[in-house]
């Protein structure tokens, strides 16, 4: 049971990535893989600031800003230098590896001994249950904020940009600027996942971001399957499903480990799992069309 609870906690930490990929892939229709770099960046910033004994509520805005900066660089390269989104993301992600390493000064930084988000208080004790409460509350607030932004006039313009670019330009919106803002938002949210994970596991590793984009992708695809299956147009509900996707994804991975799959094969299992969901949804939608 403890084992699955750990998976749920991890899944909740990955909700930031899921929301980020949901924004870049589903709302803007841009395949953005800056994720691997901006996730680690969020964790690195968190670890460094924690080691300087700075409170998490001062760390969070810096993490958001760092992620947003990474995303807007990708956005700038993509829209202004006219380089494909995929390559732009790869370039920034690669560059971020060095940036992260330089920032940390070494490849691994523990932060377990510092006071962070999960350190416990008189209200909520430092335990797995306490962490779960804090994480759920954190993710609910995050979801409410994202959901609100998406139903405002600005959010409508964001959602329309990935949907019909000709329309959005005819309606007076600078679609390039909108994409840069969107990628900034997506990567800020991804960095928040790094922020949460660094504190949950108590250390930051330079390689923690490798292949993490597939976790976000899998979560969004699980969520999106339900969104399309039930024709959901409500933004809040869509976000809830995407977040659930992140948790389900981790539970499935935990299950495969529990039945005795070699942990070294975890990335392979992840890739095959994502392939399966994508292929199955494609096939079943084709049949329904």
């Amino acid at each position, binding site marked *: 049971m403890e084992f699955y609870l750990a998976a749920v906690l991890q899944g909740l930490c990955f909700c930031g990535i899921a929301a980020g990929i949901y924004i870049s892939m589903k709302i803007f229709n841009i395949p953005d893989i800056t994720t691997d770099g901006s996730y680690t960046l969020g964790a690195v910033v968190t670890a460094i600031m924690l080691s300087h004994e700075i409170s998490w509520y001062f760390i969070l805005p810096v993490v958001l800003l760092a992620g947003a900066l990474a995303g807007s660089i990708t956005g700038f390269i993509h829209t202004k230098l006219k380089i494909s989104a995929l390559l732009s993301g790869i370039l920034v992600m690669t560059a971020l590896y060095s940036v992260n390493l330089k920032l940390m000064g070494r490849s691994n930084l523990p932060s377990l001994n510092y006071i962070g988000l999960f350190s416990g208080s008189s209200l909520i004790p430092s335990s797995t249950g306490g962490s779960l409460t804090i994480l759920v509350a954190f993710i609910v607030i995050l979801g409410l904020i994202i959901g609100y932004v998406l139903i405002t006039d600005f959010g409508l313009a964001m959602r329309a940009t990935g949907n019909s670019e000709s329309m*959005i330009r005819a309606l007076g919106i600078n679609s390039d600027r909108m994409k840069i803002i969107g990628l900034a938002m997506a990567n800020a949210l991804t960095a928040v996942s790094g922020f949460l994970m660094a504190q949950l596991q108590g250390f930051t590793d330079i390689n923690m971001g490798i292949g993490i984009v597939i976790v976000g992708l899998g979560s969004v695809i699980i969520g999106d399957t339900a969104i399309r299956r039930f024709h959901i147009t409500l933004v809040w509900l869509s976000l809830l499903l995407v977040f659930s996707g992140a948790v389900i994804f981790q539970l499935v991975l935990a299950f495969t480990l529990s039945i005795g799959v070699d942990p070294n094969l975890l990335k392979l299992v992840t890739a095959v799992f994502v392939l399966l969901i994508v292929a199955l949804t494609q096939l079943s939608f084709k049949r329904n069309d």
Partner: protein
Amino acid sequence: MIKLTSVGKDFNKGKANHVQALSDINFEVNEKQFVVILGANGSGKSTLLNLISGNLFPSSGTIYFDNTEVTRLPDFQRSRWIARVFQNPLSGTAPDLTILDNFRLAALRSKSKKLSIGATDSFKKLVQEKISTLGMGLEDKVYQPVGSLSGGQRQAVTLLMSTMDETRILLLDEPTAALDPRSAALVMQTANRIISENNLTAVMVTHNLKDAYNYGNRVVQLAEGKIIRDLNTEEKAALNEADLFHWFT
């Protein structure tokens, strides 16, 4: 209202596949005029429309709206004056957003899109009132995604969306080319009604000679990047449908 002076547009200049799409065009559209532009494929009529909308910039010459020079102003900054209907019914609306949300964005065409909720109940009532004038029964479906509408309905909705915010100019790029005859007729009638009710200046590019004959108060023919015919209201009224067909033989 719209004034183009000695406007030219070249594509791939200096290369083997150089095309001179428009050369030395002087073209003025007065307030409340409804100009129909005819021309064979490759005559430059779409290029002309794209220069007015700001999708393309001219290689030479200047473009004015009223007395403001807009030659190098990108399309999204011309939305203050211009509303557009595209040839492809999918281009003028966002299919995954609801009808209501599409109208909300259209209502902000010349304004900034803020971090506040604008698709309120009173706004919904306004949209329902507007949309009932189409007589398509869409007023009860404002929460449906626009993607679930037919091509004709989407073009009609796009037209109606253009009246949600101040508009001076309506650009129609073969609005009925992708529609069946019945929907096409309905969309053209709607366009005509909206243009006259709102005193709009309109420019329509079309291949449909019947529409060119039935609608508008001025007709212009382009060929090989030049204006070869320009008929004013009286001249157009004196025209009969067969004359138009002769232009292309």
